[in-house]
């Protein structure tokens, strides 16, 4: 199992390096002088341009430039934000909390609501809960987070006035209150997908012979459903949850922008609009790394849930 995880981690690292080459390469695909692009076309002096060329080794061949750039990043120097006139690290760090809180809140909603809903739909198949949840999920799964965000703001923040539509509040309970509407907007379509997959997987598991056997042996309905059927139904649920959490990360950008939250996503949007290239590069790398780490986490969970993978790990991709 250790070997399996090491292999996954190594391939993750390779992909991360490859994607950093892509992020780096785009700077040179852009028409014009990379030094001027890093300055976002602002008026500058020859000295300032020369300083940037020196710092990023822009007069050297591309591989040397990449290594210079990458080793700076590994040392924690993500460059300077032109717009904020500060280092990217200083601009980025205070905003991480909001984005992490929002994404974690949405992921929690997705699991805590989505999985029980899927189980209930499977156990009471074709009952009122199932019909309502399945039809609802079908529609909601097609609604992107930015549309839910805008509609939720219009209905629950403006028309009904139940929730605030702007900002993250003043920490603690107030922050949870402020983030509730954004988290719902972010979680809705993910929740629909998770509950659909849980339902299908549970229906299959409830029809297996060992569940039948457990029933015949007289175990209680609750024990059969949760202990026997759900355990084997869990693998597809974990897979889809991992994929969907990746969507949540991207979705958070749009939701933060719609709700005017001061997270990394809103920073990214402002930086793209203001052509603040160093910030965009840093955020792209950060999100890609998070995305890959989540995938690795899903692989670890597989090994924990399914003993077959632990034993035959080497043959598993």
């Amino acid at each position, binding site marked *: 199992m250790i070997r399996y995880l090491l292999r996954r981690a190594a391939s993750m690292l390779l992909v*991360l390096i490859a994607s950093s080459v892509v992020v780096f390469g785009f700077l040179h695909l852009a028409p014009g002088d990379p030094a001027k692009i890093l300055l976002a076309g602002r008026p500058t002096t020859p000295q300032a341009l020369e300083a940037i060329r020196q710092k990023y080794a822009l007069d050297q061949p591309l591989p040397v430039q990449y290594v210079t750039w990458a080793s700076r990043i590994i040392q924690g120097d993500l460059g300077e934000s032109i717009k904020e006139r500060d280092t990217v690290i200083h601009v980025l760090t205070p905003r991480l909390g909001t984005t992490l809180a929002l994404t974690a809140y949405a992921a929690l909603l997705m699991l805590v609501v989505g999985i029980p809903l899927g189980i209930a739909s499977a156990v009471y198949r074709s009952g009122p809960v199932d019909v309502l949840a399945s039809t609802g999920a079908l529609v909601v799964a*097609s609604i992107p987070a930015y*549309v839910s965000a805008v509609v939720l703001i219009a209905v629950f923040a403006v028309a009904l006035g139940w929730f605030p*539509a702007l900002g993250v509040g003043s920490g603690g309970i107030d922050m949870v209150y402020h983030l509730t509407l954004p988290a719902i907007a972010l979680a809705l379509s993910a929740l629909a997908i998770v509950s659909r997959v849980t339902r299908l997987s549970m229906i299959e598991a409830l029809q297996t012979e060992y569940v039948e056997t457990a029933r015949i042996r007289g175990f209680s309905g609750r024990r059969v459903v949760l202990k026997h059927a759900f355990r084997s139904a869990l693998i597809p649920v974990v897979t889809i949850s991992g994929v969907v959490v990746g969507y949540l990360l991207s979705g958070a950008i749009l939701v933060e922008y719609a709700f005017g939250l001061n997270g990394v996503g809103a920073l990214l949007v402002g930086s793209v609009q203001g052509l603040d290239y160093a910030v*965009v590069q840093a955020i792209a790398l950060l999100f890609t790394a998070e995305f890959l780490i989540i995938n690795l986490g899903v692989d670890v969970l597989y090994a924990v849930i399914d003993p077959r993978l632990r034993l035959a790990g080497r043959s598993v991709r």
Partner: protein
Amino acid sequence: MPKTAIFGVAVIVGFVIVAALAPLIAPYDPSAIDLSSAFAGPSAAHPLGQDGAGRDILSRLVFGARLSLLGPLLVVLLATLVGVPLGIAAGYAGGWLDGLLSRSFDVVFAFPALLLAAVIVATFGPGFGTIVIAVAVIYVPLMARVVRAGAIVESHKPYVDALKVQGFGALRICAAHIGPNLTTLIVGQTALYFGYALLDLAGLSFLGFGVQPPTPDWGSMLWYANQQVYVAPSAVVPPAAAIVLSVVAFNLAGDWLSDLASRSGRR
């Protein structure tokens, strides 16, 4: 044809007609500003009301259909024109070519799609063309991966061996035989991609990365409505409904086409 597919196709045909005949259907110039009636609610003259600059929302929605549908069309065209040959090449040739192409696709999949798009927009500047390219970059490898799987199955069928024995070259076998045999698979994918690409493009446009004002598309209309939500909350409904309705329509049509494809594959 199931009822859901009929609904999907009907909505798509309706939207395409609206987009094509926009100047005839829209009651007003979509950019005509009339500040005296800003935020006016629905009336007989303006069935969906007017926005913060007094522009007719129905006319903007009708004209907005043009870019909102043209964008995904271009993305799907690019995905097909580039992704299908790459996928067939990878699946048919195998070996190092397959390895190289498949690993390159993996790198694209490693990015959360929106982040790759953001890097591309930051590089080339916002605009309709940029977001089409940015989204196409994600859909080319998606299409290529599906086509690759199909091409592997096809290239192990006896007819391919028969063609090889007769001395046909790889290019001819791929272009004239394997490609056409994958048509149903590809068509099913294009309909699904169309819906998702529409969502992605509208999202990028919502962030201000796409068409610049005053040109309307549904994503930027949604952004504008969100900006004005305290004054006119109901103005979010038309663009939101247009986006969701078209995505549902394309998903229903796409599911039906994919179903057809998998059924004809089994035969």
